[in-house]
Structure formats: structure tokens, C-alpha cells
């Protein structure tokens, strides 16, 4: 009894701080979860290698910022420009890696309509190759990012400080997610994606280029994943094995919201981020990663279709 009451007291104290941190994490999970959900929509499979897209995005931004920022202290204008550049490079590299993955690990299997098990194994292999390759080429130590801004407290909510980092995540996250949502809902590409997700055969008969749509789906998901990797690595740095845990969590988020469902992925990501953050009051630090997994198992047991339901092809 006293165990819980004391923990709730902690929670009460730090509630707003944890909430802000949780929402920030939630945006990152949401952006990665989008990648899982979109690929799931068109291919009906979990892209196991998505964690490496996340990781390579972080590395790309790391190198760019190292080059741009170095030891200087950028002024406000430079900060914004550098930040946008880092976001773009993270996203672009993420998209390219995702495209490469699709080309190398998936397309040959699609060509001969291989069984699903083959896709999973191929993706796992690609994931292991990629992250160890990056480890080999860029070292296996944590590289700390030169943030292009100083992390000040911008304002406070109920006494909880909100730092620049959170503002950045919020702005980038909202921009990306809204843009993507509109893109999928209204553009020609979006129509193609939704058509393929609903019925690939019919879509191809109606003149949708399946290969191109799938490739673009990977790239869109990869772009968001890469950006998320960069945002994630700002406080903790980039390291070759960094993708595994956040990606597992993001996958849990995608399932929580209803896999195949874009808005579900965002909702799932935010919920998961907040739940995980608040659970700090109850779970010791080493086991915090277990929370997301617990959520995943719970969702799969109770409602495998997620909160908003599996809306394959009717995303957005």
C-alpha cells in the first residue's frame, strides 16, 4: 500500500515534467510507427529492418551537424537553418536506405511471390547487416550530436520546464505528421498507396504502378523514420545499435493504434510515449523498456486490431 502511495506521490510531483517528456517521445515513436504501418499497408508484413532506417538517419544528421556546427555556437538564424538541414538530411538518407532495403531485401522476393517467412528472414538479415556495417565503418562507440542550439528552458507548464529540444520535436513532429496525412489523403501518390493497400491486384489493373508505389511507400516511411532517428539522437547520441529498442517500441505503438492505420500509429505512439514516461514512477530505470513490450503483449491479447482498428487501405 505504502509502496503505491509513495510512488503516486512521486508521480504527482513530476507529473507534468514526465508528461512533456512522454509526449516528445511519443512523437518520435509515432514517426517510426508510421513507417511500420505504411509498409504493412502495402505489403502486409512487418518491415523488420525499419530500425536501421532510424539509425542511419541519426548518423547522417550527426555527420552533417559535425560539419556545420563543429565547435562554433550558432546564432538563432543559423540554428534554424542547421536544424532544417539536419532534419532533411536525416529524412533523405532514411528514405534512401529504406528504398535500398526494398530493392535488395524485398523486391527479389516479391518477384517470385515468396512465402511471408522468407520476407521476415530477409529483412532480419538486412537489419543485422546494416547495423553491423555501420558499426564497422563508423566505430562502435556512441557519437554525441552537436546540437545546433542551446537547450534552454523556454517556458514552464505547471512548474515543469519545457526545453528547446521538446519544442523542436513538437514542431518537426506535427509538421511531418500533418503533411504526411494530407499527402496520403489527397495526392495521387496517396491514392496509389491506398489502392495498393486495399487490393494490389485490382490496383495494378487500374494502372497503378505497384513497384513504384511500394518503393515510394518505403521512402515516405523511411523519411519519417530517418528524421525520428535524428530527433531521438540529439540528447543521447548516435550509435550503431540504437535502432533496436525504439523500433520495437514504435512497432508496439503501431499495433496499439491498429496496424495499417496512419492516425492509429500517431495515437498509439503518443499514448505509448506518455504511458512509458509516467511508468518511470513505478518501474526502475533498467526495466523501463519492458513497459512498451508489456503494452504490446497486452494489446495483442486483448484487442489485436488496436484502438482504431486495422484499417488496411483505408488509412487516413
Amino acid at each position, binding site marked *: 500500500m505504502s509502496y503505491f502511495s509513495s510512488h503516486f506521490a512521486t508521480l504527482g510531483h513530476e507529473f507534468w515534467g514526465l508528461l512533456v517528456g512522454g509526449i516528445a517521445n511519443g512523437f518520435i515513436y509515432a514517426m517510426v510507427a508510421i513507417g511500420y504501418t505504411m509498409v504493412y499497408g502495402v505489403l502486409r508484413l512487418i518491415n523488420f529492418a525499419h530500425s536501421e532506417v532510424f539509425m542511419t538517419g541519426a548518423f547522417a544528421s550527426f555527420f552533417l551537424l559535425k560539419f556545420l556546427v563543429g565547435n562554433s555556437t550558432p546564432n538563432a538564424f543559423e540554428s534554424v537553418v542547421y536544424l532544417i538541414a539536419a532534419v532533411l538530411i536525416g529524412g533523405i538518407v532514411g528514405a534512401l536506405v529504406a528504398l535500398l532495403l526494398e530493392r535488395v531485401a524485398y523486391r527479389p522476393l516479391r518477384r517470385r511471390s515468396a512465402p511471408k517467412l522468407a520476407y521476415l528472414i530477409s529483412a532480419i538479415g538486412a537489419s543485422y547487416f546494416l547495423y553491423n556495417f555501420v558499426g564497422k*565503418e563508423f566505430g562502435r562507440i556512441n557519437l554525441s550530436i552537436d546540437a545546433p542550439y542551446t537547450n534552454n528552458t523556454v517556458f514552464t507548464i505547471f512548474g515543469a520546464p519545457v526545453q528547446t529540444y521538446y519544442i523542436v520535436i513538437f514542431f518537426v513532429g506535427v509538421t511531418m505528421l500533418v503533411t504526411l496525412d494530407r499527402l496520403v489523403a489527397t495526392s495521387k501518390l496517396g491514392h496509389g498507396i491506398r489502392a495498393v493497400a486495399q487490393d494490389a491486384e485490382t490496383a495494378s489493373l487500374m494502372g497503378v504502378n505497384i513497384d513504384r508505389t511500394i518503393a515510394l511507400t518505403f521512402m515516405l516511411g523511411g523519411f519519417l523514420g530517418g528524421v525520428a532517428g535524428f530527433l531521438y539522437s540529439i540528447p543521447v547520441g548516435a550509435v550503431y545499435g540504437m535502432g533496436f529498442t525504439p523500433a520495437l517500441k514504435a512497432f508496439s505503438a503501431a499495433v496499439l493504434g491498429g496496424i495499417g492505420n496512419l492516425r492509429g500509429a500517431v495515437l498509439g505512439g503518443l499514448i505509448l510515449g506518455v504511458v512509458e514516461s509516467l511508468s518511470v514512477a513505478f518501474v526502475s530505470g533498467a526495466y523501463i523498456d519492458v513497459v512498451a513490450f508489456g503494452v504490446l503483449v497486452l494489446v495483442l491479447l486483448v484487442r489485436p486490431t488496436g484502438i482504431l482498428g486495422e484499417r488496411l487501405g483505408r488509412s487516413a
Partner: protein
Amino acid sequence: MKNFFGNPRLQRYGRTLLILLLIIVMTGPEGNGSQPTSGFTGSFGNHMSFFGFFYPQRWVVFVLLAGIIYGVISSVKLTVHWWRNRAIFRGDTYQRISRTVVATKRRSRLKSTRLGFYALGLAFALYFPHLVTDQSWQTLVVQDVLVYLLLALGLNVVTGFAGLLDLGYVAFYAIGAYTTAWVTGSLPTPPPFGVHWNTFVAIPVAIVFAMLCGVLLGIPTLRLRGDYLAIVTLGFGEIVYLFINNSYGITGGSTGTNQIPFLSFHLGPIKYLWGLIPEPYYYLTLAFVVIFLIVFSSLEHSRVGRSWVAIREDEVAAESLGIHPLKYKVMAFAIGAASAGFAGVVTASQTLFVTPPTFTISFSINILVLVIFGGMGSIFGVVLGGLVVQGFVAYLTHSPPSVYNAADLYMYLGALLVVMMIYRPAGLFPSRRRLRELHLIEGGVAPDTLQVEIGAHRVQEDV
């Protein structure tokens, strides 16, 4: 211009060139974060001198090794092929087609052939320690080859027979190893009933423990689609790792334990102690491998094995015949878990220590590679594949060539998985049944039960 780049031959050359460059970089020196290009430039010779890259000895080593592996594999395959043809379709020219369409009537013939192979292999294995007397080699063969074979045979039941992708397989291995440490009284947790038990007592305890965990994890998750299972088991493996790495009071945390006693046997007048010499361990582990082989191959050809095939091929039809799919899946999962738990005991009792780094998720991938490489579902294939891959890994560990860094092992294994899935999805020595299933799935005749609704489908070649 588009026509020019669209030329298939050019594309093939381009692809070959890219793969070649990739291999050069893969076998090149390690880079680092402060000089991001050093790994790449270093791969093409020192100080970017163009001709430098023709010299490095890595080329010689690389080509040599590739040649040896290729030679071994193709000679084994040729022999197998010759035997099969001899036994089944003497002088038949269209056996390749008939083999996929008509099943052999002379199963017994084939069986005796296979038995002959196994007998030869066993004779060689029994003689092996006299052939290779170097103790460091013997230790490697025990710990890096035979134990891995035990694990691969167990995973083959889950992935090969039942068609379930278990990425948290390492967790059961860890459970087995830590149970050994616990039972023998080597952990901070007091052993059961306060007695420091003999290691042999750990065997049943570990099997039961691992099996129990397998059943508890399996019952809720095996209802789900195959890809969900993969990710849930992945998470399970990670949790077990987190637990053993962080619970200092229970498992010894990140330092684990190195207090496990030598394997010994003391029953009345009969006494035996497995000491520091690897040879007795070699024979013991070999015996375990042989037992696994016998037990699992009779399992494959039993009612249970056939039910797994039925579920794998068409779960709905299997269920309509009265087969309880979940029960059989949990069964496969539990057998796999028990095998891994058993292998954990074997390892712990030989290395005398258990530490968390042995039990990272990557280890499951290593075992998966053995199963995939040989041919999942084929015990013969898994044994051969395991021998080839782990034999090679043992060689690399024992006398690493300058191009090889032990940390890069998983880079190679990952690449191998992709290459296998693209070019030889049924493995190098596939079971004929599995090959047939694959052909039928790819031909759209049989349903793909890992996921009934197939999103991907044949797409026309782009022009």
C-alpha cells in the same frame, strides 16, 4: 539514355560491380566516427593509392576461403545428388520434374542411403579428436560447433517443422544456462533446498523450466499471425537479457558467475570427472547431438510431424480434420525451448561461467542462420549447414585472417541471410517436402499460412 541503362546485361554487370565493391569495403579495415570515410578509403589500399588494393593479402584469403567453402558445399551436394538419383530414378532424365511431382515409392531405399551417410559422419566424428589433437581447436569444436548444432536442431523443430519464427530462442538457452548455475549453487540466489546439486540434476530442471516458459509465452502469442510471433519473441528475448543483466541479487547481473563446478558423475562405485581437457566434453556433446538427431528425425516422421506439416500447409483444413492447431504449435515451441534449455546446461557445464553477453538477441540470429543455410525442415540440411557455417566461424575465431574482425560476424551472417532468401530460400540442402511446398506457394497453388491474405503478388517486370 533510358534504354542504355535499362540494358539487362549492363544492369547485371553494374550489380556485380556494386557487390564486389561492397565486399571490398566489408572486408576492409574498421573505420571510426571522427574520420567517417577512413573505413572506405582504407578498403581500397593505404592512403588511397589506387593500386594498393590489389596487394592486400585479404584478397588472397578471401578468394581462397570462398573457394574452399564453395568446393565443400558443391562436392557434398554433388554426392547427395548422385546418391539420390541412383536410389530413386536410375537413368531417368527428367527426374527434376518428376521429383517435384511424383513422390518416391522407395522411401526405405533413400532412408538407408541417409543412414549410410550418418554412419560415415559418425565414424568420422568419433575419430575426429585423434585427427585434430590441438586442444584449443577441440574446445572450439565443442563450444562453437556441437553446442550450436544442438541449438540449431531445436530451432529447426520450431521454424522448420512448425513454420514459426522464434527470434527469442536465445532466451531459453539463457534460462537453461542460468538454471544450471542456480541448481549447482553458483548464483547469489540460493540453490533449491540449499543443496549444491550435481550438474546432471540441472538437466531435467532446466528442460522443465525452459519448456514452461515456452508454453507460457506460446499460448497467448501463437494464436497470432507469424510475424507478430516473431516480434513478440524478439521482445521476450530482450526482456530475459535485461533481467539477467540487471538483477545483481538474483543472477549476478552483468558479471554473471564463474563458479559452476566441473561436470562430474558419481554414482556408487562409478565416478567420472570432466576436467579441463576438452576431449571428454567432445564425446559427451557428440552423444547429445546424436540423441537429438535420432529423436527429432523420428518426430519428423511421426503423426506429430505430419500434423505440423498439415498446419503449415493449410491450417483451416487441418483444423477441420480435428487437429488442434494451437496445441501443436505450443508443442513445437516447447520442444524448441526445451532443446535450447538443454543446450544451455551443456554450455554452462563446459565453460563453467555464464555472463549476459552470451545471451543477446544476436545469438538467436546466429542459430537461425544455421537453420536457414542448411535448409529449414531438413535435419540432414541443418546438420550439414551447421557444420559448414560454424566450422568456418570456428576457423575464423581460432586463426582470424587479417581481414576478419570478430565484431563483424553478424554483418556477414546478416548478409548471408539476405543472400539465402534471394537465391536459395529453401537452403542449400533442402528437404524435398519443403522445396515442394515452396514451389507450390510461389506458384500460387498452396496457401501461405504464415499469413493467409497475401499483399504481395506477382508484378509484371517493368519495361
